């Protein structure tokens, strides 16, 4: 069968395929940039229409975060949490589980990290690692609940995670306002963590002020690489991918689909737990009400932006945090109000996954080449 006259055409096909694939990659990249530019252009119009000075605003937004080392630190610190949260949903998304539970997991992680870091005296290195571990475990546990409900009972994970978020956020609020509140303090927050448990600030390393940025950044990078390896280089990752792609096929092929689903939730939860630990041990140094802000939700944007590829999530996280930081600086330095900043961020979010532009171009290139021959 292999020595048919087709061989010639086949090798031609093969060549063509490789060329197309390489070109597609280039087109994808450049078009992603083009879409972002288009989004920024629309933001430009929004500012013009609302009577602001777009040039000055964009200057603040696009160069602002790099203006001072402190702002770079602010960006990196934000990106660390955001990327971890993006990673935490990317894994269940890979198994096609729409887990919206990062919020509950990050709070559970923060609670666990704080419980250890505040109350348990530990020797130096352990003082950092044990809370991290506790946070990952708590996050994983919080992920396990909807995971097991989905895998074992078939309970819808969207409902389960949304409900769990609502519950955990309220319980967290109660704990921070009540039992865990620092005695004698009028402000609402827990006692500070022990000195040894803090994630070393990057300023200590580089000798320049970098705000609250800390070695959690490297922890985040390591996590991303580990998750990428997990997805592409381990049997469990393979099982998660196949389960996400076609669960019936996965089951037929001998993959225990419920187990793969559970694992995806547990791993995601653990990563979100780490994000909680980063907030406690690196950012605030204690528990504060509402400490994750809207990051848990924006992690979803980051994950989907990166099409759930862990390494790309890092890029998307850095990009999105840059936008967040830039938007804040724009609001401070110019007359553009918070409302318009939100609108511009919305426009960018809306357009940034518009893939049709690159696809259109790809199709045009393919057609032109077909026409040539």
């Amino acid at each position: 069968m292999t020595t048919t006259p087709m061989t010639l055409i086949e090798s031609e096909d093969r060549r063509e395929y490789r060329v197309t694939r390489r070109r597609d990659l280039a087109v994808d990249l450049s078009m992603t940039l083009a879409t972002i530019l288009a989004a920024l252009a629309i933001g430009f119009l929004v500012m013009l229409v609302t009577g602001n000075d777009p040039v000055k605003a964009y200057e603040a937004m696009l160069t602002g975060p790099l203006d001072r080392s402190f702002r770079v630190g602010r960006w990196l610190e934000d990106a660390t949490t955001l990327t971890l949260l993006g990673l935490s949903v990317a894994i269940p998304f890979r198994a096609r589980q729409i887990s919206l539970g990062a919020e509950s997991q990050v709070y559970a992680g923060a609670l666990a990290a704080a419980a250890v870091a505040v109350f348990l005296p530990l020797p130096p290195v352990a003082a950092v690692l044990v809370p991290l571990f506790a946070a990952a475990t708590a996050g994983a546990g919080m992920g396990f609940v909807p995971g097991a409900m989905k895998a074992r009972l078939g309970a819808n994970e969207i409902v389960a995670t949304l409900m769990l978020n609502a519950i955990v956020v309220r319980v967290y609020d109660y704990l921070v306002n009540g039992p865990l509140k620092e005695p004698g303090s009028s402000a609402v927050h827990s006692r500070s963590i022990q000195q040894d448990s803090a994630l070393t600030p990057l300023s200590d390393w580089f000798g320049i002020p970098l705000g609250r940025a800390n070695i959690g950044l490297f922890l985040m990078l390591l996590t991303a690489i580990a998750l990428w390896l997990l997805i592409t280089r381990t049997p469990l990752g393979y099982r998660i991918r196949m389960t996400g792609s076609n669960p019936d096929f996965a089951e037929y092929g001998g993959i225990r689909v419920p187990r793969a689903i559970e694992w995806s939730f547990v791993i995601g939860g653990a990563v979100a737990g780490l994000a909680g630990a980063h907030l406690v041990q690196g950012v605030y140094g204690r528990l504060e009400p509402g400490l994750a802000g809207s990051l848990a939700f924006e992690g979803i944007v980051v994950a989907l932006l990166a099409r759930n590829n862990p390494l790309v999530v890092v890029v998307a996280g850095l990009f999105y945090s840059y936008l967040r930081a830039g938007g804040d600086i724009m609001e401070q330095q110019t007359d553009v109000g918070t409302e318009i900043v939100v609108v511009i961020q919305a426009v960018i979010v809306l357009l940034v996954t518009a893939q049709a532009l690159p696809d259109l171009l790809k199709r045009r290139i393919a057609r032109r080449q077909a026409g040539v021959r």
Partner: protein
Amino acid sequence: GGSGGDENSGAAASGKPRIKLVINGGLGDKSFFDSAYEGLKKAEKDLGYELKVVELGSDRTKWEPGFEDAASADDYDILAAGTFEVTDYIGELAPQFPDKKFWLFDAPVDYTGKNGTCSNKCENVYSVTFKQNEGGYLAGFLAEKLVAEKSLKGAESLKKVGVMPGVKIPVIEDFVVGFKAGFKEAGGRNSDVLVQYVGGDKPFGDPAKGKEISTAMYGQGAALVWPVAGLSGLGTFESAVSAERYTFGVDSDQYQTLTDQAQKDTVVTSILKNVGNALYKAAQDDRKDSLKYGAVDTVGLADDAVGYVDDDHFKELVPQKTRTELQEAADKVKSGSVTVPSAF
């Protein structure tokens, strides 16, 4: 960062001192921040200041960097901020920018410098806090008198009163603690005070839920409901109209701010916590160089920073006897012969 203020650190080109109000939340809350903003705007107009407002939004991850940014920029002379949430940020930043002045309202920085902030003993920070418990006390006192004397038309048979705070945090709880104390002082029973928090995703911005809760409290026999929940409280006035019952306003004079006459009519009085006045006063004092930096100023009934509205509508609804009793109670608090318990 750096130690700021190297060039042109005096005043603006215009020569006016510049105030930067940094809000860890947003304007439009119809109470706390709006009141602060109004006070400073008035100062801008009357006293020759320049005012800039920065809103940081409710996402807490942005607060610390937001304050750092605000403090590092050299476009202000006085940085004003409020709430307990930001005391540590101010305590960190004040020593870094010793040439600048900081005003902190509704919370004190830690002037002792013991917990790591305020390394310069916050000599450039003026803090002002409010005895909102005293306002709560008067509200509770008045409420019990009104139901006991059956003065509220259409609600004569009812004994209960309701309080609807946004969330259970100390500053808000201070109102409630005071209310209960006043209610008891006037002869009421604790069990007649219904307290229900709005809670949820937007405790200070969910008027629909506020309305539902007030309606429920009226349904449980409350003659009046006192919302301490920002915009959520707007729902209370609507429910009071349909239940034909009464309300107290909070923070600002809500008889003035409401537009609907039926709703206005439900407002017996408003318990004022006048953040704006306090800031205006600080601005006045600062112009005269008599503002006391490096210390906390605690203001209450005695300073007119907390109080109640005594207008024609109030006189119409509240009998003379009750008004006198209320005035006496207020005097006792002012003179210090009564100490109102606090949530702090």
